[in-house]
């Protein structure tokens, strides 16, 4: 019994780490598309779009697999949790999936056509879906966090489970977080380019977004208090230290940005987002689905959890060096940008 308990928590923690990685890496990818969308007409937007593209290009596919990772761990280790979430929330999930298809396909196709009209069409579809997808993912998080996904197949309301104040808050915050992360990361990328023409551009935008998210989060307190009391209680008790860390890290990222300390600003921004995600987990634990379904009760049998832990360890041993190689290879400036 105790063995299952530990194993379930270990798998959960790994899954949550995967979710955090998705938010930090995949989120920044989405955010890149967000800034692409707002970059203005073709002429004005060319320079920032190029930088965005340069930063996302080699890594977006790998970043995107984190989501798959979270899903497969969830469905194998907490089958009832996955079945309940996916069946009740099939509408926002379908919309998010279609957004991902539009986004990935448009990004890949953009270079393979030469007519400006098609390029613009693909570009617009990439940018638009980059905004819509995290919104729907955020509504899903809001649905789970506010206890609107009861355990059972399609046991929740397929509409109001994700169209409600907490979900909307989740959606807006998700889009904001993506834009913020991307803005901060892109500042550092821009600083690596000779002359730093885009540094100011992304700096202003990152700072503004950070302030805006702060305001949304403050308003969110009121929303959660009224709409998701259980979550609110959790966030203000067990989750409180993490929420405080998040707020502090967010504020310091603004200060660091303004002072042009870009690398520490990146770290602070990532920490702010990480702390929110784990704050949510802390607030909701021990429930996988509120009310009533604990992590323990939802967990797969011990044999499965052990097989999962084994493959997660072996997989990580293969994955982490590969990922590190990918990122170091591409996060050094291009040695010989040949034309």
């Amino acid at each position, binding site marked *: 019994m105790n063995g299952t308990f530990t194993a379930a928590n270990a798998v959960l923690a790994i899954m949550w780490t995967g979710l955090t990685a998705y938010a930090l890496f995949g989120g920044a990818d989405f955010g890149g598309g967000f800034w692409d969308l707002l970059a203005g007409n073709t002429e004005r937007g060319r320079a920032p779009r190029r930088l965005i593209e340069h930063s996302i290009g080699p890594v977006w*596919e790998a970043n995107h697999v984190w989501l798959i990772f979270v899903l497969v*761990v969830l469905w*194998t280790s907490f089958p009832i949790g996955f079945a309940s979430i996916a069946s009740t929330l099939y509408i926002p999930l379908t919309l998010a999936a279609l957004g991902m298809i539009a986004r990935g396909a448009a990004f890949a196709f953009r270079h393979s056509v030469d007519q400006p009209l098609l390029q613009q069409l693909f570009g617009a579809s990439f940018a638009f879906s980059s905004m819509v997808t995290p919104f729907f993912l955020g509504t899903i998080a809001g649905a789970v966090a506010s206890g609107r996904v009861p355990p059972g197949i*399609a046991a929740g309301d*397929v509409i109001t489970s994700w169209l409600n104040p907490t979900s909307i808050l989740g959606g807006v915050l998700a889009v904001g977080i993506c834009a913020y992360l991307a803005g901060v990361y892109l500042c550092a990328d821009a600083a690596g380019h000779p002359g730093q023409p885009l540094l100011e551009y992304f700096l202003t935008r990152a700072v503004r977004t950070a302030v805006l998210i702060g305001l949304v989060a403050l308003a969110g307190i009121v929303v959660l208090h009224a709409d998701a009391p259980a979550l609110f209680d959790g966030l203000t008790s067990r989750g409180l230290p993490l929420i405080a860390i998040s707020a502090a890290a967010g504020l310091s990222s603004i200060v660091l940005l303004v002072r042009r300390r870009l690398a520490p600003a990146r770290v602070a921004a990532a920490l702010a987002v990480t702390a929110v995600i784990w704050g949510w987990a802390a607030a909701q634990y021990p429930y996988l689905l509120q009310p009533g379904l604990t992590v323990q009760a939802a967990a797969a049998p011990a044999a499965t959890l052990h097989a999962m832990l084994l493959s997660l360890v072996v997989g990580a041993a293969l994955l982490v060096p590969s990922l590190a190689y990918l990122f170091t290879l591409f996060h050094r400036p291009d040695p010989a940008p040949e034309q």
Partner: protein
Amino acid sequence: MSRHGVDLAWTTAVTGLLADPAASDLYHARMQMALSLGWHIVVACFGVGFPAMVLFAEWRGSRRGDPDMDALAHTWAKAMGVLFAIGAVSGTILSFEMGMLWPGLMERFGAIYGFPFTLEGFAFFIEAIFVGVYLYGWSRLPTRIHLLSGLPMIAAGVAGAFFVVSANAWMNTPTGFQIRNGQVVDIDPWAGMANPSTASQSAHMILGAVMVTGFGVASVYAVGMLRGRHRRYHRLGLLVPLSVAAVTAPIQIVVGDWIANVVAEHQPAKLAALEALYHSGGAAPLSLGGIYVDDHLVGAIEIPYGLSLLIHHDPHGFVAGLDRVPPPLRPPVNVTHLSYDLMVGIGFALLGLAAWLGWAWWRRRDFPRSAWFLRAVALSGAAAVVALEAGWVATEVGRQPWIVYQIQLTRDAVSTAPGLRYGFYLVLAVYLVLTVMAVYVLRRLAGAHMAPIAPQEPEPQHQPTGGSSL
């Protein structure tokens, strides 16, 4: 095509069911699953088969200083990049659908059926990483390191296919658990992966992926040669993938025989449907084609003792027919049987093409130069895709009405959420657009109009030196 056949069968089945919204949602859920899987699988085949071919071309190009091979490697890498990207996005929705459409399956069996998908997730993660390294690292890495960085792509692509097919094999021949008092107990996910169908199905699938890639790429160059492009670049572009596919074709038939024997042993109801056999007994004939009505097969070509011989290597071997299966548990026979015959027919046709190539090569160290040969190669890519789709339709429809053979009915696994059908319409529309776009972009990559701009590379890097067309 095959999917159309499925459609027809269901249109009839569904007219009776439409009154019942739950049944109609089941129908739409099945169609949505079939559509997105049938789409994904075509692209995914290139993720399994292409890396090795690209790497081979790069290796030959660099080792022998062969500019044509080098140019082929670059062009193929770009196509691989596009295909990989759409493979990845079309795979994502599949994993959502597992829960959106079949929560009953995931809830009950996720702990066992879900496990290979975790391993698959790692495999594709690694594949995605190294595809990124390979495509973008071309100008950054020394050739030797670049070639080495391609190897994990090959390994991960094949491993991923193995894992995911083992999940499908488990649906066909589930193992690794017990059912006691209606509860699923004694779960062992490793034993689930080691089910009786995994070995034959995954071998057959990986070979199928290589055939689709090989014939598919060769057919592009065959079209080009029919249009008068005969440089060495085009000849190599045809010969390399075609040789790979030609070597695979005979092996695939041997594996096909193996897989049929596994089905006969472990899924007798499916075998009966594949062969449209109603009467159980010895001396069972092999029936090709025909339409199955009221437990009779009309208009088929019969080979006496054929089936008994194939399954038991004995003309009087006993083969179970559909009469052994209670009517409500019989799969739709026509779709299953005709898809199966289509796959096998194409398998032998492709074997013939491979033999033609082999003969000419043996005689003259060159491929046949007749226009008919080129026409056949031009068709072979589409034919291999049709065989692949038909094989899957036979497998999946032949398992019905079970989602987990003899354990769980498809209708008990489907989601009870209202309005599933609208999801299907939406997905259908998006896939139509995606298909048009993908075909358009790939045609441009293959076409002579432009030097292919990299799908994944931010700047054009190496321009193919040996000719940018095709």
